[in-house]
């Protein structure tokens, strides 16, 4: 049975091992944002042996490029971007201790294998619900690569940020299960 689990970052192995595909997760605490350009920068820094702007151990990475905040607001719309574009970088970050990724859409087998090997999970947020999701973000600050604009790395403080477990530590995939349940043959 799918369950609802409240998680606070940073995450432990135990936090992620209890999760099964289809579980709802409500995340609180600090999460970091990064999408295409920021991932390239992070992996380039690692390749050069330079320090990252954050310690990845136990952390959660949210694939998002928010829209600008209006004056007096924390952030603009902030829904997930499609995750497969980060697939070539994700295993490297998972090996560094990243425990969860939040995005939308399918992941490559290499990423799923890395999640199994290093105990991490992939969480899906509702794509296109940028206004709704923004209400769970309580603070936002750019901590690296400000020149990337919407692609800069932000440190977000979130409260009960809703997501669903798409890939768990056992290598299972909620998308595949969902399609199996509802697929039918077209009459031609």
């Amino acid at each position, binding site marked *: 049975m799918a369950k609802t689990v409240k998680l606070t970052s940073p995450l432990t192995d135990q936090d992620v091992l209890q999760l099964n595909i289809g579980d709802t997760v409500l995340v609180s605490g600090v999460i970091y944002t990064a999408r295409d350009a920021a991932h390239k920068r992070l992996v380039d820094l690692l390749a050069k042996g330079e320090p990252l702007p954050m310690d990845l151990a136990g952390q959660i990475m949210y694939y998002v490029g928010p829209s600008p905040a209006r004056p007096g607001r924390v952030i603009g719309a902030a829904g997930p971007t499609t995750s497969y574009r980060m697939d070539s970088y994700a295993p490297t970050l998972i090996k560094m201790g990243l425990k969860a990724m939040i995005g939308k859409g399918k992941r490559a087998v290499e990423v799923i294998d890395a999640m199994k090997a290093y105990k991490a999970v992939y969480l899906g947020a*509702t794509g296109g619900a940028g206004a709704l999701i923004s209400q769970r973000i309580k603070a936002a600050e750019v901590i690296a690569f400000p020149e990337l604009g*919407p692609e800069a790395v932000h440190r977000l403080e979130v409260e009960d940020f809703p997501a669903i477990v798409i890939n768990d530590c056992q290598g299972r995939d*909620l998308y595949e299960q969902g*399609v199996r349940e509802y697929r039918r043959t077209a009459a031609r």
Partner: protein
Amino acid sequence: MRQIEAAQVTQAVKAAAIAANYEPGADLLAALARGAETEESPSGKEIFRQLLENARIAKEERIPMCQDCGLAVVFAEVGQDVRLVGGDFDQAINEGIRQGYGEGFLRKSLCHPLTRANTGDNTPAVIHTEIVPGDRLKLTVVPKGGGSENMSRLYMLKPADGLAGIKEKVVTAVQEAGPNPCPPIIVGVGIGGNFERAALLAKKSLLRELGQANPDPEVAVIERQLLEEVNCLGIGPSGLGGRITAMAVHVLMQPCHIASLPVAVNIQCHASRHQEVIL
């Protein structure tokens, strides 16, 4: 000749860009409400409810529906009895985009293709200009998200592939896209023309009111059949499994070369945004 000032064009484009991103159309809201009623999968129903709530918050709290405020596609229908004065037409449109995305707190999502340096103001827009009879100027601003655009496909089929081949490609494109383009999607299909025209037809079909059938009954049948087949895939809202993978399939068709059967599939996420203004 009726004169229209470039500054009027800029104002109109700016207002349309902002409205498109904050105010979902009545057709989209109706389709989402229908989905919340009819989707069988509990998680799919919940996604529809979230999307309706998202639309309400966007309008009331002035937060864009989606953080991907899109590459701005602008369709311009210029009456042949219109004379544009006081500036360059394309520049006037781009100025409207620049002002709209700046003052409207919309995300700037355009960059150099190789260095990936952001252009900073969401320009240049992709502008499609047509000369039409009359003395009016119609501008339609279509912010198009990158996630769904990435899942779009163009196929140069053989004439022997026929309608069965077309259907197979449309279904394959939607299946391969899976959860990536933010389903429930709208599938725009262009059949015929040539390489670039098929793609343009597919994009143009997305301007039609959501779910309204093509006026040509022959094409309307193809739309219905494609929607049924696509919705057999089981992808469902957010890809979590369900009956409604697509809310509509829109097809535009025109003659093509005797050697060709071009088919384009332009996938539109559920944040279907387009705002029309007539000067």
